[in-house]
């Protein structure tokens, strides 16, 4: 079980690195998907090893996948809108709402 948790931590750390260092908005969204996957691995692992009486963890992971799909749809629509208005999607150029 510990090996699955360690794998999920490494995947989550890589996702954090991507979110912090990517300039491209789509790159940030892809790193977010990596982090969602790490969380899902954790949920399924705990389901198998800690609470195997029912499948609550797997149900929760399914909901996480659905919400991630909704998030990706809205995020990519925002990215298209940004590209239409700015001709570029680098996050350091998008400072309209920066104070």
């Amino acid at each position, binding site marked *: 079980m510990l090996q699955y948790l360690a*794998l999920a931590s490494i995947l989550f750390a890589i996702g*954090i690195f991507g979110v*912090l260092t990517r300039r491209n908005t789509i790159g940030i969204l892809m790193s977010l998907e990596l982090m969602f996957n790490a969380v*899902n691995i954790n949920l399924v692992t705990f389901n198998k090893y800690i609470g*195997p009486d029912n*499948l609550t963890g797997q149900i929760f992971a399914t909901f996480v*996948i659905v919400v991630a799909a909704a998030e990706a749809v809205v995020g990519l629509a925002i990215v298209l809108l940004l590209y239409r208005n700015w001709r570029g999607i*680098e996050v350091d150029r998008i400072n309209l709402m920066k104070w």
Partner: protein
Amino acid sequence: MEVEVSQLVFYLLSFVIIISAIYVVTLRNIFHSALFLILTLFAVAGIYIMLNAEFLAAVQVLIYVGAISILIIFAIMLTSQLANKQIRQSNEQVMIGIFICSGFLLASLGSIANTVWRIVEKPLPENNTLTMGKLLMNEFVLPFEIVSIVLLAALIGAVVLARKEGA
């Protein structure tokens, strides 16, 4: 013998996951990193199968590999100038990023190693998909309905956002 084979498969899958995830966050060409993202998602589906979550593995392949990554590739093709390789893809916070994520990694690995886990040695319910369907229709029917409303809202929101002004 069987345990050793599953160990071997696990290490192979995690090797693929980690290497391709590193490529996802570091490659300069954003299109190549989207392709490596697809590889990562496939290997995570393999991990789900190793954890006896067959339905979740199928959902992963259908939704992540089939839908979300296609959506991401579409967005890349609509927005980036792929021919222009000179665009820098990472900002000047790479050192801080490495620092923060290795700090997180150390903290979480340490807490995983130091926690006493109460592992229950019991097999999961037989017939994964049947059990999940029954749970979704009985115990979790309210979140199931709410998540469908979330999907509808995301659909309408994406259409409203991506529509041209005045059209």
